């Protein structure tokens, strides 16, 4: 289950979470591909690094391996940020 915030909720059709199946041993970049296929608008923002992926409450590198039970979220630009 992937938590959504801010604009990504709207782009996912106003849902607060995404349920996407990801085989074991996959990485953040594989997750991005799966999201891209299902929600291309979110996928585009992920590719551009406008939306970041967090794993266990830390912003994750695309090569990080995602494990079962990890807490995953999509983070659009923060209110105060300038990235």
């Amino acid at each position, binding site marked *: 289950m992937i938590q959504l*915030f801010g604009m990504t909720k709207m782009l996912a059709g106003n849902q607060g979470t995404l349920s996407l199946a990801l085989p074991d041993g996959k990485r953040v970049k594989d997750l991005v591909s799966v999201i891209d296929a299902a929600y291309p608008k979110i996928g585009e923002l992920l590719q551009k690094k406008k939306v970041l992926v967090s794993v266990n409450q830390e912003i994750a590198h695309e090569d990080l391996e995602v494990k079962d039970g990890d807490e995953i979220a999509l983070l659009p630009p*923060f*209110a105060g940020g300038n990235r």
Partner: protein
Amino acid sequence: MSLEHSTKADLPATDDEAMLVRVQREDFSIDEELRRVRRRSKRIGGIAMFLGTARDRSKGKDVDGITFEHYEGMAQKKLREIRERALKDFGVIEVLVLHRYGEIGIGDNIVLIIAGAEHRAEAFRACQWAIDELKQITPIWKLEHTPEGEVWVEEHP
């Protein structure tokens, strides 16, 4: 019992410690939050504070109100990190970091940083660093309500 900052590491972790970093819906009183910081040490001589409030205009548009959304857990974690780094890196005695979420009316409080130090220079440095850092790393999002509709804002200055 003397609550000097030199012995702060030995203090029991009380409710107080959790109260020094909060993400909450409710409004807050600056006097009350100041008391939490000041009671930590009689060595405090300079307290720098930053209070962020909801402006009625943003980038040339009227704003009627704001909704803040946060990532529960990660937001608190980042604010705790900010407090701890401010304490470690800036030579201050105590730091409080507080952010509201939910509906915020124009003119209302959004965010409060309090940094208490022996002298004002450290207090200002820590306070300014903490609010800058908060805006960089804290997973909080802002939906502005304008006469033309609602907009997720990518940054607020």
